[in-house]
């Protein structure tokens, strides 16, 4: 019992420390670093969407960046062109993207496993083609610029630091919701579909609908990420929402570990900050970076979080066996 309390205290302390860091970060850091962290958190939201559809529901989607693009273009059109309020634009981005994912899911989830993944590559390519060529809706190859800033009431988010708090706020809220999802009936149905579709359907779970709902929830997160991206960067074009970016998100969740949102967070931080830290390697940077990721996948196939858990379990086991041995003596 006492041990449990100490554990809680440590967690509380870590949370307090994280809050202190978050609140003070913009004051002690350069604008460039804040910018990098903002992009990291947007990546995190996109990867979190992948945690829902891939980590929980077991469907590896290459279309997340395309969904993000849909969110970004909805925001850009609604807020800048038609003059709706930014919050309304953001909500419409989330709902619109979710609706798109839900409807397209009925076609894509007829396919299973790898075939589904391939079809999402096709979807991504189609979406990117639309972004790059639909001049009326997306600005075509030129993209859309001079987008309005995010604002609540009269308060305009016009600096990187303000966006930092905004994005962190949304990220924390999204993380808590997804965390709660894990122990909810819906979350359980996702995991049932991932682990055993036959057992799932014998437990009253509609596999197709469940996958669709997972894809729609990931659409909400992607819509949010895209919307924030549009507000933050003030300019969007088709190059931001292309297949390589989607592939990167899958790499991120594989590295971080697909078993928990923490994996998504660690992966996002690593993938965004590592290139910054490795800058001193100059020409060899991408080489070292690539080899490093490859090595990580070989050593820790379950990702950093999964590998960490395994190590911890081994440590506990060794500790227990030592205690048992001592008692035996």
């Amino acid at each position, binding site marked *: 019992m006492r041990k449990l309390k100490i554990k809680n205290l440590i967690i509380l302390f870590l949370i307090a420390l994280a809050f202190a860091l978050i609140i003070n970060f913009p004051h002690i850091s350069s604008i460039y670093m804040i910018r990098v962290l903002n992009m990291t958190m947007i990546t995190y939201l996109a990867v979190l969407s992948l945690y829902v559809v891939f980590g929980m529901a077991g469907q590896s989607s290459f279309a997340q960046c395309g969904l993000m693009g849909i969110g970004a273009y909805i925001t850009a059109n609604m807020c800048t062109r038609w003059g709706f309020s930014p919050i309304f634009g953001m909500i419409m981005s989330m709902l619109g993207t979710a609706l798109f994912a839900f409807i397209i899911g009925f076609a894509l989830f007829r396919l299973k496993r790898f075939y589904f993944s391939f079809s999402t590559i096709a979807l991504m390519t189609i979406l990117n083609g639309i972004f790059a060529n639909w001049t009326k809706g997306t600005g075509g190859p030129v993209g859309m610029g001079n987008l309005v800033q995010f604002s609540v009431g009269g308060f305009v988010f016009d600096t990187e630091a303000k966006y930092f708090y905004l994005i962190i706020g949304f990220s924390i809220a999204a993380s808590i919701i997804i965390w709660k999802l894990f*122990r909810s*009936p819906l979350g*359980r*149905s996702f*995991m*049932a579909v*991932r*682990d*055993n579709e*036959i*057992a*799932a*359907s*014998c*437990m*009253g*779970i*509609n*596999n197709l609908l469940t996958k669709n709902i997972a894809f729609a929830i990931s659409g909400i997160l992607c819509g949010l990420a895209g919307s924030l991206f549009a507000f933050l960067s003030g300019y969007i074009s088709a190059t931001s929402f292309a297949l390589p970016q989607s592939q990167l998100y899958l790499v991120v969740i594989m590295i971080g570990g697909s*078993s928990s949102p923490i994996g998504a967070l660690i992966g996002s931080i690593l993938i965004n900050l590592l290139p910054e830290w490795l800058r001193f390697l100059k020409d060899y940077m991408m080489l070292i970076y690539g080899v490093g990721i490859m090595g990580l996948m070989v050593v820790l196939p379950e990702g950093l979080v999964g590998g960490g858990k395994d190590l911890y379990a081994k440590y506990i086991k060794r500790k227990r066996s030592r205690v048992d041995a001592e008692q035996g003596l």
Partner: protein
Amino acid sequence: MQNTSNAKEAVLTLNKVCKNFGGVVAAKDISFDLYSGEVFGLIGPNGAGKTTLINLITGIYKVDGGTILLNGHDITKTPAHTRARRGITRTFQHPHLLNRCDIETNIYLGVDLAKKNKLLKSLDHKKLLDELLEVAGLKLNMRDGIDKLAYGQQKLLEVVRAILTRPSVLLLDEPAAGLNQKEMEHIVALVDIAIKMNSAVLLIEHRMDLVMSICDRITVLNFGNQIANGKPAEIQDNPVVIEAYLGRKRGA
């Protein structure tokens, strides 16, 4: 026996159900009724089509001919998940648990299914769960992974999960296979709870001591054909069944 059975309304009725896999006949004109509160045994040699029949009842396979009725409603074309929601729950010969999830997630799938039914929603599922785990002799750390459980425990857990859904029809596919004597007793105790709950239990099993002791009625399958029906004592003495499955006693 037949008369008392007819007086009650059947929960599940199979009417001339057929299934072929290419040229292999897995089920041919299988007909029987299941009544609530009874254990119905389904026995026969390997490959007789017992598991296929469960797959047909749960909707994993589509029937080639015949009809399946649940509480008088035709469910022949109903998808598997809808049948589960209407009260048909099963276990598998090899446990189908969620391998990457912890025990809690696995168990609560059963509660989730029960809560989808309006009539069962408000019942005390936690109490039932505690009772079932005690009867099953399972002392579990809910946050442990499934891989921490022994094979027998996994099978017991699957039965617990199935009964937790408060099924009107419970289909048990060789629940005692690979279990030791003590675990088998736990299975019997669990089946007792299901019967008290007024479930209709269909039991596939090769262990004859178990089948003969807990089944009210038995049907025997061989190569997809129903070769005998009756009470355990009648089946034991049926020459056709002895020839096909039970085997002759030495010196008889």
